[in-house]
């Protein structure tokens, strides 16, 4: 074999166009895959950061610390309409003569806003399965409202059980408040506050419509002494 052929083979072995072309395409494929993996890793990282950020944001939105003094610490748990689930409670209302309403004295000292000068009191009864009559007293309800019926305080209470509700809150990580070492939970959905607590052996459920936060705190502190 001549020098020419030998040396041609030497360089062809190194610089063969077909061989290098295939190596280029393979490198391009590896690079693209590597870039895709890097992109996916980056996207995943950003996604995780976004989820964490949104979670922190939602948590911050959910619980809103609003009031604190020596004897109380009120934290509002904000809920949206999706957290509030309505139920069909099988109950019956029966108006109660004001003379027979329990805890008259206590409720005389509650700080109800002056414009809520209308009152309606009733009992909530559930069905007795043995005779199908609504004669099992579940709780009492005191409603204080204004003339236009847009501002309202509804206090439901019972000394035997938590009062039956026609809704429940589906949220995680509920923040507790306290007044005079009594625990309570306050929720807010738009212009409605829901407060639940146990005090002096009574279970309370208080629902306020278009009542300010200050008025709410005033009411709660007048009950929980």
């Amino acid at each position, binding site marked *: *074999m*001549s*020098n*020419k052929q*030998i*040396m*041609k*083979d*030497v*360089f*062809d*072995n*190194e*610089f063969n*166009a077909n061989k*290098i*072309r295939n*190596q*280029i*395409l*393979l*490198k*391009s*494929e590896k*690079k*693209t*895959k590597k870039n895709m993996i890097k992109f996916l890793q980056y996207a995943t990282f950003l996604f995780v950061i976004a989820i964490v950020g949104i979670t922190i944001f939602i948590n911050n939105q959910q619980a809103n610390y609003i009031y604190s003094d020596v004897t109380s610490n009120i934290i509002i748990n904000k809920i949206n309409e999706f957290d509030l689930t309505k139920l069909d409670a099988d109950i019956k209302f029966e108006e109660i003569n004001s003379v027979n309403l329990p805890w008259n004295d206590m409720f005389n000292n509650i700080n109800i806003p002056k414009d809520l000068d209308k009152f309606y009191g009733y009992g909530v009864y559930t069905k007795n399965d043995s005779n199908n009559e609504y004669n099992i007293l579940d709780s009492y309800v005191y409603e204080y409202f204004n003339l236009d019926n847009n501002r309202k305080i509804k206090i439901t209470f019972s000394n035997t059980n938590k009062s039956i509700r026609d809704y429940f809150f589906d949220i995680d990580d509920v923040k507790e408040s306290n007044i005079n070492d009594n625990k309570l939970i306050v929720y807010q959905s738009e212009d409605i506050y829901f407060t639940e607590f146990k005090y002096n052996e009574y279970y309370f459920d208080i629902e306020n419509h278009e009542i300010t936060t200050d008025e709410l705190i005033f009411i709660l502190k007048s009950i929980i002494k």
Partner: protein
Amino acid sequence: MSKIVNQETLNTFDKLYYDTYQDVLKHIVINTSNIDDVKDIIQNVYLDVLKKLGNKNIKLNKSYIIGIAKNKIKDYYRFNYKVKITSLFSGIRDSKDINLVDTLDANIDIEKIIIEKQDINFIWRYLKKQKAVIAKIFFLYYYMDYNIKDISLELHINESNVKNYLYRTLNKLNSLMKGKGE
């Protein structure tokens, strides 16, 4: 075949590649400081071409690709901390080249020195360790079919030096390969 590049792009790439490959290869060989770097650099050049294929604002032709090659050579040596390219056009001369002219017969016949054994890997390993100019001369002479005169014009060294480099290297190769075989 690549699974990432579509067929149409591949066809365009192949046409461009085979039309320009020899010229781009020659340009890179002449302008690198080590022939062993050529493969990496040429791959980088055509990877860039492949990337630019989708861009309608770029007219990919031989001149453009040679331009890419120039940049890739610079980048390669900048980022790989290799020996800075010393252009053969700078006029720097090795004093040994002058001695070659003095001590060897100008009429030596290179073709009379035959490499008796054909170990292409050995030859390549030897060539890439020599001065860059030697590998370039061999490349141009044997692979690109340049004659001595064209090589001297291309590399800006005189014809005697071209001949002498060829002669000495072939002799050395031959004696090394004989010794290897024994």
